[in-house]
C-alpha cells in the first residue's frame, strides 16, 4: 500500500488539508535507493515520510484517520470514521490516492458525508466514488492523477463502490502507553528473536524473552532477578518496566512486521518518545533499510536529531497549525520546498524556524511572572 495524496475536510482538526507524497526530481546518490514504484522509475513517491510538528498539529490524528479510512474500506463500516467528523452539521470529506499492494494501479477514493442535522448518519448520506488508472512504465504520479480526474463519475452505493478496491495490509501504531500491547498470538522463532533483540537493544538488563507455551499472546520478559509476564496482551505489573522498555514491546512487534514484510505500509507515531535519541535513529535506519520494495513509512517524532540523518529533504514534512486560519488551520510544509541544495542544513532551518512552524513558548514564560498564593 502506497499513499500518494491525502485530502481531509471537517475531519478532526483538519479543514481543507492536503498532503502529497510525490516528489519531483530524482535525487542523486540518495540514501534511499530505488525510491519509486518498482519497474516504474518515473513514478517517484516518498518511501519515508518523517513528520514533525508542535503538539496538537495533527501527527497522531492523521494516523487515526488513516486507520479509520482503511477500516472503512476493508470492513465497509462507517461508524468509526464518522466519529471523527468535527462538525456534523457541515459536510465532511476525505480523498485518498493510493496504490494497493501488488498492483500497478493508482486508485482514488473520494468520500463525502452529508451534513447531519441530528448528528446521525444513514447509508444515503454517504457518497463514495472509486476510480483507478493503470500506471504505465513511464508514468509519474501527476500524469496518473490527471487521468483520474478525467474518469467519469459513477452512481454507485458507497459500499458497492468500495468493493472495487483490492485488499491491502497496513500497520499503524499510536503513542499510547496502555498496559495492553499488540503482540502476535502464536509467535514463531523469528518473531521471538526479533522481540528478544529489540528489548535487549532498549534495556540491556533484559536477559531473555520467552513465549509461554500453550497460551495466546503470552510472554515472559526476564530482566535479572525478576520475571514480567504478558498474558494475552496485558502486561501484569507494568510498573516493573521502564517507560522505554514498555514502549519497546510495541516497537518489537512493529519491527517483526517490518522485517517479515507482513505489511508494506507503516505509520509509526511517536513510539520512541521515551527512547534515547541514538536508539530512535538506529531503529528508524533499520526500518528504512528493511522496508520492502513498494513499501512506505510514516514516522512522527519530536526528536530534532532525526533532522541530522542523511535522508533526502523531501522525506521531511512539518505540520503547522495556525489558529488564526479557521478555514485551513493545519497545513503541510515540505522541507524540500525551502531547501534545495544538499548542503542546506535542515537542522539549522528548524532551529531558526525558517518554516514559521515552531510552537510559541510565550505562555510558558508567563509562568515565571506568577507569584505564590498563600491563601488556602
Amino acid at each position: 500500500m502506497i499513499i500518494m495524496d491525502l485530502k481531509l475536510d471537517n475531519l478532526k482538526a483538519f479543514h481543507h488539508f492536503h498532503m502529497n507524497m510525490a516528489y519531483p526530481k530524482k535525487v542523486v546518490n540518495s540514501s534511499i535507493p530505488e525510491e519509486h514504484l518498482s519497474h516504474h522509475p518515473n513514478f517517484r513517491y516518498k518511501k519515508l515520510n518523517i513528520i514533525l510538528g508542535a503538539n496538537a498539529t495533527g501527527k497522531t490524528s492523521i494516523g487515526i484517520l488513516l486507520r479509520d479510512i482503511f477500516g472503512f474500506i476493508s470492513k465497509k463500516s462507517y461508524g468509526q470514521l464518522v466519529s471523527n467528523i468535527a462538525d456534523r452539521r457541515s459536510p465532511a470529506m476525505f480523498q485518498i490516492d493510493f496504490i494497493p499492494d501488488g498492483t500497478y494501479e493508482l486508485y482514488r477514493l473520494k468520500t463525502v458525508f452529508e451534513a447531519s442535522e441530528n448528528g446521525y448518519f444513514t447509508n444515503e448520506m454517504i457518497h463514495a466514488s472509486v476510480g483507478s488508472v493503470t500506471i504505465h512504465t513511464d508514468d509519474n504520479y501527476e500524469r496518473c492523477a490527471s487521468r483520474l480526474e478525467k474518469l467519469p463519475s459513477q452512481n454507485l452505493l458507497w459500499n458497492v463502490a468500495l468493493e472495487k478496491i483490492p485488499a491491502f495490509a497496513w500497520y499503524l501504531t499510536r503513542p499510547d502507553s496502555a498496559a495492553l500491547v499488540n503482540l502476535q498470538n502464536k509467535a514463531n522463532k523469528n518473531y521471538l528473536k526479533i522481540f528478544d533483540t529489540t528489548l535487549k537493544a532498549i534495556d540491556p538488563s533484559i536477559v531473555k524473552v520467552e513465549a509461554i507455551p500453550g497460551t495466546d499472546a503470552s510472554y515472559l520478559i526476564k530482566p535479572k532477578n525478576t520475571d514480567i509476564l504478558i498474558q494475552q496482551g496485558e502486561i501484569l505489573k507494568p510498573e516493573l518496566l521502564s517507560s522505554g522498555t514498555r514502549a519497546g514491546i510495541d516497537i518489537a512487534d512493529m519491527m517483526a512486521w517490518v522485517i517479515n514484510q507482513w505489511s508494506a505500509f507503516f505509520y509509526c507515531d511517536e513510539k520512541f518518545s521515551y527512547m534515547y535519541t541514538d536508539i530512535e535513529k538506529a531503529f528508524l535506519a533499520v526500518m528504512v533499510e528493511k522496508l520492502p520494495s513498494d513499501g512506505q513509512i510514516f514516522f512522527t517524532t519530536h526528536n530534532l536529531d532525526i533532522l541530522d540523518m542523511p535522508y533526502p529533504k523531501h522525506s521531511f514534512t512539518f505540520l503547522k497549525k495556525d489558529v488564526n486560519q479557521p478555514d485551513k488551520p493545519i497545513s503541510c510544509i515540505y522541507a524540500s520546498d525551502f531547501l534545495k541544495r544538499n548542503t542546506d542544513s535542515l537542522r539549522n532551518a528548524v532551529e531558526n524556524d525558517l518554516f514559521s512552524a515552531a510552537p510559541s513558548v510565550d505562555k510558558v514564560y508567563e509562568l515565571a511572572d506568577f507569584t505564590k498564593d498563600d491563601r488556602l
Partner: protein
Amino acid sequence: MKNYCYFVEGQDEKKIIDTLKTELKLIQPGKVQIVNPVQERIKASRLNSLTMDTTIILVFDTDTSSAQILIQNINFIKSRPNISKVVCITQVRNLEDELLRSCSISHIRELTNSKSDREYKSDLIKISNLANRLNACGFEQSKFWAKQASGVFGQIVNQADEIRKIR
C-alpha cells in the same frame, strides 16, 4: 551553527517577521518570541533555554518616553554566556509607521483591506496571504526598518541591515 531569536512586542510583529523570513526570504530566519523589551524585564529563564552562540534580535517601537528598561535588558542579555550578540531594530515610531513608509499606501487599512485603520492590527494577524498583500502594496525592503530613532532612543543604533538577506 548560528542560531537567531527575535524578541518582538506583539503578534503583528511576529506575523510580519514570519512572512519576511519564510515566504519572502528577506531576513535571517530565527524563532520569534513575544516579549516587549522596552516595557518588560527579560528574565533569565527565557534566555537559558536558548542554545550557545545565539544572536538575539530585539524589535521594538520607539514611541515611548523611556528607554531605561530596554538598556537594562540589552546589558543583561549581553552578559549571558550563551548569547553571542544583541541586534537592535528600532521601529520608528512603530510598526504601522514602518509599513506606511515602505509600502505605496496612504492608510494602513489598505494593506489588509480592513474597514478601518483600527481593525488593521487584528486583520493583519489573521490574514493568510500577507506576502501577496505586501507585494501588491509595493513593499520595499530598503525602506522598512530603515530609520534611525531620535529622542530617548537616539542612542540605540538601528542594526536592521545585519539581518537583511541580500537579494
